[in-house]
């Protein structure tokens, strides 16, 4: 083992740590100087690359979604500029068709020169608040092609031998809604790449160019060696699963499958997406770079202790059918790539949960973005406002542990949610509720984490529209090992003047709203792990005390009958005999309920006899949650996976 290193142990360990520190310093500086509130809330990443563009170190706190994409953009800049790169140059790129994520993620890349030759590159990637396109924030869910999504930046030079290329920078900035901030972020990010360059030059000065160059390669080999050792220790085999996007807005009813087959063979992992659906008529498509990243991020979850670099990326292969939803090509719209991205991540969680049961994890809630923009009429000059919000939710139940409550989306666990007080200052919106949502956790022996609900009222505003980017209204967050799903996502609007609720669902854009309108969105809890009838009743009582679970759902989902002694003092007790009887009854009836005629279920829902949670958790039926109309194809798709993930794991009695 030890002794495989091309450098002496001290130099290797010191360089390995110093590379990571140099990247973390870059991140720290970006965080402290950025203008984009999205970057400020930690949607950014940083990397150090070797002279070939391979990633030698990525930041410890980087957002997951950027993992495994930075080397693609570095290489694309190298491809484009070739020998025409000089000391003091900084380049920009945001091209998803060249391995970038989506247009708002703009990367600044600086070649680092030692002895007149490039020894490394530093890269700072941040999510700008806007990059143009047809809607504020550059998320137009109605886009079919990239032309209305925002500005595509193929490799450009922003600094030429240290001189700021004002013309190019202003062209970029002028195609956004907030040019002053964009110039600020260009400066913040380019200075950050300089921080990393300074550290690398210090190392070159101390250890010499050759040693640092060897170190940049050695740290990748080191990670590769670690991963391959661990994969080789696993049994060879194949694991398959499917997850879904809710719909193709341009197609008929029916969920959009993403199929993955994982093969472990020796010290390699192969991910085969054959059978996945072709690209769809919305922005929920993924180009190859982000598919690669989803696999890397999903798999990295099972290797949490290893540093991130290209050594990790060398340990897996991807088979991506051309033109499928996970291999979209220019000019197909891909700004909503996070939807397929999270499906891939959760599928990988499911498959690796079989390989490493001690790290098993059920499905997490779906990320969601709300965009509201218009004129803020609270002051007489009516400035433009842009309310761009995202919520945390519940993560999946684990092997021996409940899921994590109210946690940021799995595509980027570093991402922070925003303070309501800051939002209320900046936007004509009053939030009336932002709380944990009772009964949102997917039931299981180990339940999912809890989601939240946020409800906001428009204050004085004009020319205001609302858009929403979410999913899993139909491909509802699922449980594993017998665990149950949580609940559907989707936004509800209540118009001022009380015309009742209008369910707008999980994907819509440019709906006009005005003063007094109230919109409310829940996030799902995580899926359950294990049969909920096996959950310790004492844990159910604790959940009732904290209002994570209601007394009613404790009976329906867990078969636990709880008597309230004194709610003011949080005193409850389990009725042991009634619980045993109820659990026996549920066991006897539940399989039949899951196979009940979906039309009957839909009718019971419309008549008010059963609730959304009953429909999902007891009958595995998918409806149009507004009208209550049955979605037959989605239901049969949902039931097929429910049978495999949940029913097959239930004990008969």
């Amino acid at each position, binding site marked *: 083992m030890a002794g495989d290193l091309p450098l002496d142990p001290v130099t290797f360990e010191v360089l390995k740590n110093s590379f990571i520190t140099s990247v973390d310093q870059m991140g720290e500086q970006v965080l402290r100087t950025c203008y984009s509130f999205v970057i400020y809330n930690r949607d950014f990443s940083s990397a150090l690359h070797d002279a070939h563009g391979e990633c030698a170190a990525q930041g410890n706190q980087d957002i997951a979604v950027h993992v495994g994409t930075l080397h693609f953009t570095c290489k694309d800049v190298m491809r484009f500029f070739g020998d025409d790169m000089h000391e003091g140059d900084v380049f920009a790129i945001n091209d998803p068709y060249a391995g970038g994520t989506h247009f708002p993620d703009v990367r600044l890349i600086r070649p680092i020169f030692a002895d007149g030759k490039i020894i490394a590159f530093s890269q700072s990637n941040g999510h700008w608040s806007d990059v143009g396109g047809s809607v504020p924030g550059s998320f137009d869910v109605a886009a079919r092609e990239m032309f209305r999504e925002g500005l595509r930046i193929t490799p450009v030079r922003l600094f030429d031998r240290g001189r700021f290329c004002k013309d190019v920078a202003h062209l970029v900035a002028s195609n956004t809604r907030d040019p002053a901030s964009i110039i600020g972020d260009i400066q913040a990010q380019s200075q950050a790449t300089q921080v990393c360059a300074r550290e690398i030059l210090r190392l070159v000065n101390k250890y010499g160019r050759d040693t640092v160059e060897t170190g940049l390669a050695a740290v990748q080999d080191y990670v590769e060696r670690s991963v391959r050792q661990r994969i080789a220790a696993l049994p060879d085999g194949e694991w398959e699963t499917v997850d879904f996007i809710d719909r193709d807005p341009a197609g008929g009813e029916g969920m959009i499958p993403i199929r993955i087959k994982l093969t472990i063979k020796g010290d390699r992992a192969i991910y085969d997406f054959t059978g996945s659906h072709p690209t769809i008529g919305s922005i929920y498509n993924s180009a190859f770079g982000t598919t690669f990243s989803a696999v890397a991020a999903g798999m990295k979850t099972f290797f949490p202790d290893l540093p991130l670099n290209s050594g990790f990326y060398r340990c897996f292969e991807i088979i991506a059918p051309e033109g499928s939803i996970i291999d979209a090509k220019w000019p197909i719209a891909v700004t909503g790539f996070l939807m397929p991205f999270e499906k891939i991540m959760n599928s990988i969680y499911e498959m690796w949960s079989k390989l490493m049961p001690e790290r098993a994890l059920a499905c997490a809630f779906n990320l969601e973005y709300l965009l509201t923009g218009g004129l803020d009429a609270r002051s007489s000059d009516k400035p433009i406002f842009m309310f761009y919000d995202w919520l945390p939710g519940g993560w999946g139940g684990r092997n021996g542990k409940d899921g994590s409550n109210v946690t940021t989306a799995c595509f980027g666990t570093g991402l922070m949610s925003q303070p309501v007080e800051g939002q*209320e200052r900046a936007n004509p919106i009053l939030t009336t509720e932002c709380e944990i949502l009772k009964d949102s956790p997917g039931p299981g022996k180990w339940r999912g984490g809890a989601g939240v609900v946020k409800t906001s009222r428009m204050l004085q505003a004009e020319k205001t529209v609302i858009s929403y980017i979410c999913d899993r209204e139909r491909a509802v967050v699922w449980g594993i090992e017998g665990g149950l799903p949580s609940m559907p996502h989707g936004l509800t609007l209540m118009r001022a003047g009380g015309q009742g609720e209008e369910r707008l669902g999980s994907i819509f854009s440019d709906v006009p709203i005005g003063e007094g309108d109230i919109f409310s969105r829940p996030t799902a809890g995580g899926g359950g792990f294990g049969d909920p009838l096996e959950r310790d009743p004492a844990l159910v009582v604790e959940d009732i005390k904290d209002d994570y679970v209601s007394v009613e759902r404790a009976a329906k989902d867990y078969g636990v009958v709880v008597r309230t002694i004194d709610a003011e003092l949080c005193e409850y007790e389990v009725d042991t005999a009634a619980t045993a009887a109820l659990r026996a009854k549920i066991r006897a009836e539940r399989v039949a309920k899951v196979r009940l005629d979906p039309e009957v279920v839909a009718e019971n829902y419309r008549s008010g006899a059963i609730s959304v949670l009953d429909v999902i958790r007891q009958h595995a039926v998918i409806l149009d949650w507004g009208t209550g109309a049955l979605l037959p194809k989605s239901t049969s798709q949902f039931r097929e996976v429910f049978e495999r993930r949940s029913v097959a794991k239930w004990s008969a009695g």
Partner: protein
Amino acid sequence: MVQNLRVAVDVGGTFTDICIMDEATGLIRIEKTSSTPDPIEGIMGGVSKAGIDLSEVALFSHGTTVATNALITRRLPRTAVVTTKGFRDVIEIRRANKEDLWDTYKDVVKPYVPRRDRLTVPERVDAGGLVVEPLDVEAAREVARILKRRNVAAIAVCFMNAYLNGANERAMREILLEEVPDIPVSISSQVLPEIFEHERFSTTVANAVVSPVVVSYTSRLGERLANEGYTRDLLLLHTGGGVMTPASVRDFAARLAGSGIAAGAIASRYIAGLCGYPNSIGLDMGGTSTDVSLAYEGQSRITKDWHIEFGYPIRFASIEVLTIGAGGGSLAWTDSAGSLRNGPQSAGAFPGPACYGNGNTQPTNTDANVTLGRLGSNLAGGKVQLAPALARQAVEDGVAKPFGLGLHEAADAIVKVANANMSDAVRLISISRGYDPRDFALVAFGGAGALHGVDIARELAIPVVIVPPNPGVTSALGCLLVDMQHDFSQSCMVGADEADAADIEARFAALEEEALARLTHEGIASQDIVLQRSIDMMYRGQWRSLAVHAPSPIGAIADLVQSFHSEHQREYNFRRDSAPVSFFRLNLKAVGVVPKAEFAVHEPTGAIPEPVGRRRVWFEGNGLDTPVYERDDLPCGFSFQGPAIVEQVDATTVVPPGASAEVDKYLNIIIRVKE
């Protein structure tokens, strides 16, 4: 009765250190005693062991881990939160992020108050500070009644936008005081009148939960001291780097969280200042961790971005201290892919390093230092006997064999990796903040700081290392060197182009009035009060602010903006002179200057002490015959060249070849590290 003693007590996990200074002579002596489960027993035991007559004590100051420990161990009294309807879960939702991004089995710890004890009342203030919904008094009384039934020991009141208008919070507090008398109530508009609900609520909740613990502790200690003759106020060190009296502890209990960590930073700054170095980096290396702090132009760096546990910020101004998991007991190990790692796992106090002979066979930094001859086989004046053979065995088996290195080469490798990790930590707090280490002195203390200090200074191009006379008890000394201090702040979000200097002056004046009242209440005479203003500013559109010193009276806004540009240039290496600048927050540091006793000044004696021994010590692969001095033998003015080892009860100093050392008039060892 002449009161001419100053006593400072620092209670750590293992030892309680008592530092006694005689104001008449400036001489300091140290008493070390074991910490006890109730820290007060250890303190009083140490006081009596040291033979202190408390009636002769003019000042008794104390750094305590009581608040920190209560938070970490969650041994907290049942506490409730009363909050705005719809916002029950602010402290549980937090910012929703995780500390470990990749380990899905590692969760952020639970909030200090569980959901069941967070109750809501209808009320609302809007973003303009207007009460859009008055407190529902009926509902408020109902909540109070329930909390009384639940027998809670403390209550935090946290309402939305209360930083702009605390009327509803105050009304709620009144009702609670009527219905549930004698229970401490913390309200967010008083504890921390700053924007961002989670940060403000979290600080307020931390304040409420530790309040009963801390108040009971300080009153018990105060009584014990008074019973034994102490006539003044007990002074408590807070994270801001000053002390406060029990009267202020009542309202700002959470300021004591992290109290102990601040002490080392203060001592380091003070000692460096005495030696003529206004810029200094403190390296406090103990058994399991190392605390790094930085002082620039005589001021400690202050942060408000701080927590005891991830996810639960305590937004009181705190001395910035970076703690890393590297200490004497850190384990050196080889990972599966063959890299030589150091820490963060530690052998702890037990079993401790291999050379303690308590069963650990993995090598630690201490074992490497023993193998290299840098540490002798006696520690703590002979109380701890080390077994060098066991140290060598551990280094041989753990590192030398796997890597095919010689024994001393392996020990050297362990020390070098540890030094590199500590150097990285120092870099993060210095170079990456725009400070040039060449302008700094490194103060090396803690049990292991002086073993590694010169190597780290060389790595960072810091020219000078200062080893204080009692490196192992420097934190206690820090408690002795503080002033009364309170920190005030207020959100002030306005563009510099729209800012009205008169309005800002008035806001500062209001803060100053509050500050004067509090310090006066604590018995500080007005001529001893120093007020320091600063303003947190940013380029409009930026999200983090930077503190800029502000004069009194405030003067021209344009001058403040200029100061901001320069500060931004220093810290981040760029400035945008044409970009608009915004104000974010006003800060006031109010100091009640406590007259400092002078340290005893020694005269050079010209004496040349004899080494107490010689041994072979390994530097860069060479075993050099090295003199070993006893610290107490080294007189003022004595200078010597490396290689040399200086041993004393609580620390060992390594002066490597190429470095030269001199004992200054305060008996610090000043080492010039040049090779």
